[in-house]
């Protein structure tokens, strides 16, 4: 029997009528939008609830949710519905009225679903996952849940290090979800027919490539507290879990749900390319999403047409990690011009490289000048940019900004990071100097309307990147660096914004943590931590107290240069890029040696041999250039 069987959809719907008028933005909780898919509950075998553990306004703009919603609902034997984290006012109302969290489509309590899948693109959502399980009247800890409870799954970029959340999640999907969700549903169906135990379901799931069942492993630590190894407790479970990828990007979704209320992105998202060949050493996405797979220009154009018809949106976002590297970018822009120039359709092309060609692209797209032009040099000195492997000469950068001003933009947004390895105060001073140089260039060209927005975030050494061995910069250093920028970047044409260093550290320990963090996350949540991604909600005291109560130090995870010999808690997760490659790249960085775009020549990161059979099987679908031997001096 389901624990929430007393809560029928009718009862929930009825209670909502008097609750919703009393909360902010009630349309977050009512569902019923255009293109929502409602299937018959009784006659559909597998019920899957897709949960984005932040508010509706943010989750509805997440492309991953839209992709999985579309794919699962295409099956005749399964349905997918949505749930999001209720904002604090709604949470209070749910708890006061003893109502469980429910799905937007049919208002079923989450506990009535067979599978609950959490989307975890970033780590600061972890406490919200616990809160949602609690609001669903489910046990927080995986081991306390039983046969009658939904299977709790999680996937997304944060789960490339699944260990901090291992105690709460039954099964992780490592890598791309498009094919795995289908296999999970198949396995679930056959398991249910066999009427066997939950353990047998987990064993069958563990046989799917890319699925990680954390309860099949036990973590061991050295006496000094460092991670030793994972011990397998289930014979059939894989020792190494390789991320899943799709050989071809499946057809892009276009029938997007159109929210009645404003959400963070009001646009049609189209992924034009997955993966990145640039190899910026700080970039988690760039390492874990390899290899490159592109969509054809004709598919993109067709998707825009279908999506505009299906949604009525007047904005399209062409998404990728590096738009300029999309092979047919010039053709794409030309085609867009000829199909949509008279449609009142605005096209955004984020993540452009710093080169004058990018300005030509934006110009050709007829992009409005209002939002400004965004460039992400990430560091202000050539030395630093070489170190992080984002080699751009200062001269090219200035030429690009000149072209931007000359083409009618008066606002430039510059994105930098501080706290890079081996960064000195001189490198930070250079951020201020460079920004002012761009400002004075702008003043000459566009006059006093010029605006330079400098946005500074703090570097986090993410797992699976060449910098995974590096320590975070200290709080004192970061504060000193921010103050330096604050002193130097003043004036009416300059705007400086920066991330809270504490938010950065929270993200850092959650991304670099091991299984012992589960207790910390649990205690922090118990003491009120949730919405950790929200500056005005983050409760650092709860986190510090939780660490202290567990006898752990956050600095152990974040501020310790890890020796090459130390095992990482995420070593059993294989992203296809070899650890040895990452290590070599780290060592090269310390000598300020770059590894430019791997389309120019392969550096043998490992992705090609790893997925060679998949690549052959499905026809050569992605581009890894022929292997050239590089000196590794």
């Amino acid at each position, binding site marked *: 029997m389901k624990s929430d069987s007393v809560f029928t959809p009718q009862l929930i719907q009825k209670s909502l009528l008097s609750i919703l*008028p009393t909360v902010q933005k009630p349309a977050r909780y009512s569902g019923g939008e255009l293109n929502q898919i409602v299937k018959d509950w009784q006659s559909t075998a597998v019920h899957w609830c897709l949960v984005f553990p932040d508010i509706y306004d943010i989750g509805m703009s997440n492309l991953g949710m839209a992709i999985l919603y579309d794919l699962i609902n295409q099956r005749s034997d399964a349905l997918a519905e949505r749930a999001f984290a209720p904002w604090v006012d709604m949470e209070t109302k749910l708890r006061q009225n003893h109502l469980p969290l429910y799905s937007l489509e049919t208002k079923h309590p989450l506990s009535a679903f067979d599978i609950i899948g959490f989307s975890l693109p970033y780590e600061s959502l972890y406490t919200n996952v616990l809160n949602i399980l609690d609001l669903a009247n489910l046990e927080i800890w995986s081991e306390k849940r039983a046969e009658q409870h939904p299977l709790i799954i999680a996937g997304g970029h944060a789960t490339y290090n699944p260990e901090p959340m291992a105690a709460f999640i039954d099964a992780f999907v490592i890598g791309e979800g498009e094919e795995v969700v289908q296999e999970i549903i198949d396995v679930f169906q056959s398991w249910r027919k066999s009427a066997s135990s939950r353990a047998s379901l987990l064993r069958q799931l563990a046989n799917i490539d890319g699925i990680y069942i954390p309860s099949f492993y036990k973590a061991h630590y050295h006496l000094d507290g460092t991670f030793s190894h994972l011990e397998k407790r289930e014979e059939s479970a894989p020792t190494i879990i390789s991320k899943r990828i799709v050989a071809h990007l499946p057809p892009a979704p276009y029938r997007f749900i159109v929210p009645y209320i404003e959400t963070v992105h009001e646009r049609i998202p189209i992924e034009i390319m997955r993966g990145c060949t640039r190899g910026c050493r700080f970039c988690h996405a760039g390492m874990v999403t390899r290899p490159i797979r592109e969509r054809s220009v004709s598919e993109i154009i067709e998707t825009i047409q279908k999506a505009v018809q299906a949604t009525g949106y007047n904005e399209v976002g062409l998404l990728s990690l590096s738009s300029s590297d999309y092979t047919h970018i010039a053709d794409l822009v030309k085609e867009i011009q000829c199909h949509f120039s008279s449609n009142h359709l605005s096209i955004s092309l984020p993540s452009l490289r710093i080169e004058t060609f990018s300005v030509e692209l934006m110009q050709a797209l007829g992009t409005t000048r*209002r939002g400004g032009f965004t460039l992400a040099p990430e560091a202000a000195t050539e030395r630093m940019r070489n170190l992080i492997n984002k080699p751009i000469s200062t001269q090219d950068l200035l030429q690009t900004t000149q072209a931007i001003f000359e083409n009618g933009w008066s606002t430039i947004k510059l994105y930098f990071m501080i706290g890079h390895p081996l960064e000195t105060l001189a490198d930070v001073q250079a951020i201020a100097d460079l920004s002012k140089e761009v400002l004075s260039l702008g003043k000459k060209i566009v006059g006093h309307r010029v605006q330079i927005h400098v946005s500074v975030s703090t570097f986090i050494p993410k797992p699976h990147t060449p910098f995974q061995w590096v320590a975070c910069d200290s709080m004192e250093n970061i504060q000193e660096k921010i103050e330096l920028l604050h002193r130097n970047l003043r004036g009416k044409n300059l705007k400086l914004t920066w991330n809270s260093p504490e938010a950065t550290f929270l993200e850092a320990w959650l991304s670099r943590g091991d299984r012992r963090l589960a207790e910390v996350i649990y205690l922090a949540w118990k003491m009120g931590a949730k919405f950790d991604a929200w500056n005005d909600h983050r409760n650092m005291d709860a986190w510090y107290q939780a660490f202290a109560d567990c006898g752990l130090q956050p600095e152990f995870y974040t501020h310790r240069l890890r020796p090459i010999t130390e095992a990482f808690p995420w070593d059993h997760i294989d992203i296809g890029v070899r650890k040895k490659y990452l290590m070599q790249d780290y060592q090269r960085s310390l000598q300020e040696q770059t590894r430019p775009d791997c389309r120019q020549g392969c550096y043998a990161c490992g992705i090609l041999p790893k997925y060679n059979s998949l690549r052959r099987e499905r026809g050569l679908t992605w581009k890894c250039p022929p292997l050239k031997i590089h000196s590794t001096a």
Partner: protein
Amino acid sequence: MMRVRVNFDKTEEMRFTGHLDLYRTWERTLRRAGLPLAYSQGFKPHPRLQIAAALPLGFTSSNDLMDIWLEEKLPISFIQSCILAALPPGLQLNSLTEVPLNQPALQSLLTASEYQITFLESILDLEQRVQALTKHSSILIERRGKNYDLRPLLLSIEILIHNAEEQQRLKTLLRTDSALHARPDELVNAMGIPAEKALFHRLKLHFNQELT
């Protein structure tokens, strides 16, 4: 150029959508309909459409009115089929009429709004509460820190369903013009009933001239 008056209902699915969101929903609906919308001039051109009266979040409506402008003259039946194919849940199309381009804006012709109020819980002394309300010569309501008198704006009120066993219902006519407007949820509050215990539906808009 063509000006078309759209008579529509905002139904249950869009109950929790506010005025600006209703506007954006119409904008998208008309874009999906593929009609040649006339756009405003300026930095960020918007399709030209005017909704007669704002409807608060939490309310549904029938016979709501909106004017839209099209770049070219098209048969009404064609426009109707385009819109019907593009409607989202929560919007229903009742009728379309062409109106002269030079007619004043709908908002400026508005005089009153007729509402139906349905109580979610039974109110045993509903009759007394209504009577008490009408006996007052003034009903002061605070809205965003300012007081206004609701009484002169209350043009009529009647009980449609008395029986406390069923869902009780009221009908009321409240003055609505550019300077003054009363809200039925404030009226319910003034009766000493929390507004979340009732559902609000705007039945009809009244104008100072016969509209086509």
